[in-house]
């Protein structure tokens, strides 16, 4: 079940390339692989936590106030992550800045709460959090790897090809859009082709 779920989270329902959710942080912090990994891990933690708690209280929270309840739960986890990063990984805090707090409004997390955790058991919701969180992290790293390599000729901060003149365009937002677009196209082209061959 686990590997099936992981496949679903990373490929079929990949938050960025499959569902096109959470594009704002994907664009903003994907300039370096280190930032992408940090952001991915923060989202992974928040997603697992919020999925766990929301699936626990899903029968108890009245339908009409469920969204404010979910947002409060998500914001609690985000605040915990934010404080912990500030206290224990100050380097990452300086790089990500405001984007950690903005995880609260990341639609991947509220999306999973509303469409999955509020309707499934605790165990399934945790697995879903891990799968979708990993899908998000891997997508961010993929975008960041392309942008860091082309935009500043680096990988995790280390020069890859000495003497190569980086294409600065990729470090900026337009380069980010094009990278995300190209990867989206590639990802979905493969998926559509596979689906066609099945039918």
């Amino acid at each position: 079940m686990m590997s099936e779920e992981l496949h679903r989270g990373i490929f079929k329902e990949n938050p960025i390339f499959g569902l096109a959710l959470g594009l704002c942080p994907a664009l903003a912090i994907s300039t370096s692989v280190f930032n992408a990994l940090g952001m991915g891990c923060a989202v992974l933690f928040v997603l697992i936590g919020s999925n766990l708690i929301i699936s626990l209280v899903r029968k108890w929270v009245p339908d009409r106030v469920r969204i404010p309840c979910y947002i409060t739960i998500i914001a609690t986890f985000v605040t915990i992550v934010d404080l912990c990063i500030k206290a224990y990984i100050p380097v990452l805090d300086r790089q990500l800045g405001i984007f950690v707090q903005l995880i609260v409004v990341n639609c991947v997390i509220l999306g999973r709460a509303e469409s999955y955790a509020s309707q499934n058991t605790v165990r399934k919701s945790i697995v879903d959090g891990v799968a979708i969180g990993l899908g998000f992290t891997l997508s961010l790293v993929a975008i960041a790897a392309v942008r860091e390599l082309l935009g500043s000729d680096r990988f995790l901060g280390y020069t890859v090809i000495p003497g190569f003149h980086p294409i600065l365009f990729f470090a900026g937002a337009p380069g980010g859009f094009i990278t995300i677009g190209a990867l989206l196209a590639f990802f979905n082209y493969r998926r559509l082709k596979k689906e066609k061959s099945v039918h």
Partner: protein
Amino acid sequence: MNETIKLTFALTIVCLISGVVIAFTYSSTIHEIEAQRLFEERRAVESVFPAGAMIFDTASQSPFPARFWVARKGPVTVGQAFLLESKGFSGAIRFIVGIDTQGVITGVKILAQSETPGLGARIEERPAEKLLWTAFKASAGNERPWFTRQFEGLSIRKQLSISSMGEWPGLSEREKQSLVGDNSVSAITGATVSTRAIIDGIVKIAARGGERRQP
């Protein structure tokens, strides 16, 4: 009515638990966060002064600069450092600048900034001279950020300017020399506002007389 009470009750409980959890996390991390801040500040001040100087923390009387430090070697004052805050592209950039008694900048160190990652945030970027594969063998280099390093040796008594020569790590030794000669720094591509912010902060302290008298 019954429904209203139920909804209110549910939300109250959720918020209450959330509040307790956050309060607990806050109280158990705040000492660490504060310690990190002080440690960074101390290290920043040390890094802008010549090695071996005694540093005295001085509370400023005027609101600007908020704080400054005096470095002495024996009885002689060798320099001062100022905590400056300058408006960047997104929010304030807090940094420390060290100036010797001749008005020459001995170091600039960024304390806090919220500039755009990949653009303005590169004011803190370290030069990556090591190749990827060497990373597995040796520990990461302790290079200082290249952007702030350019300020060392420039004078606050002359006009500070921005050169469009290209980014510092890509320049030859001769071009770097000519930058120092012109009392100018190279800008970060795509982040002129962040570059300007640091310069403006230094110009502001220069206008206030730069080297203040000892209190």
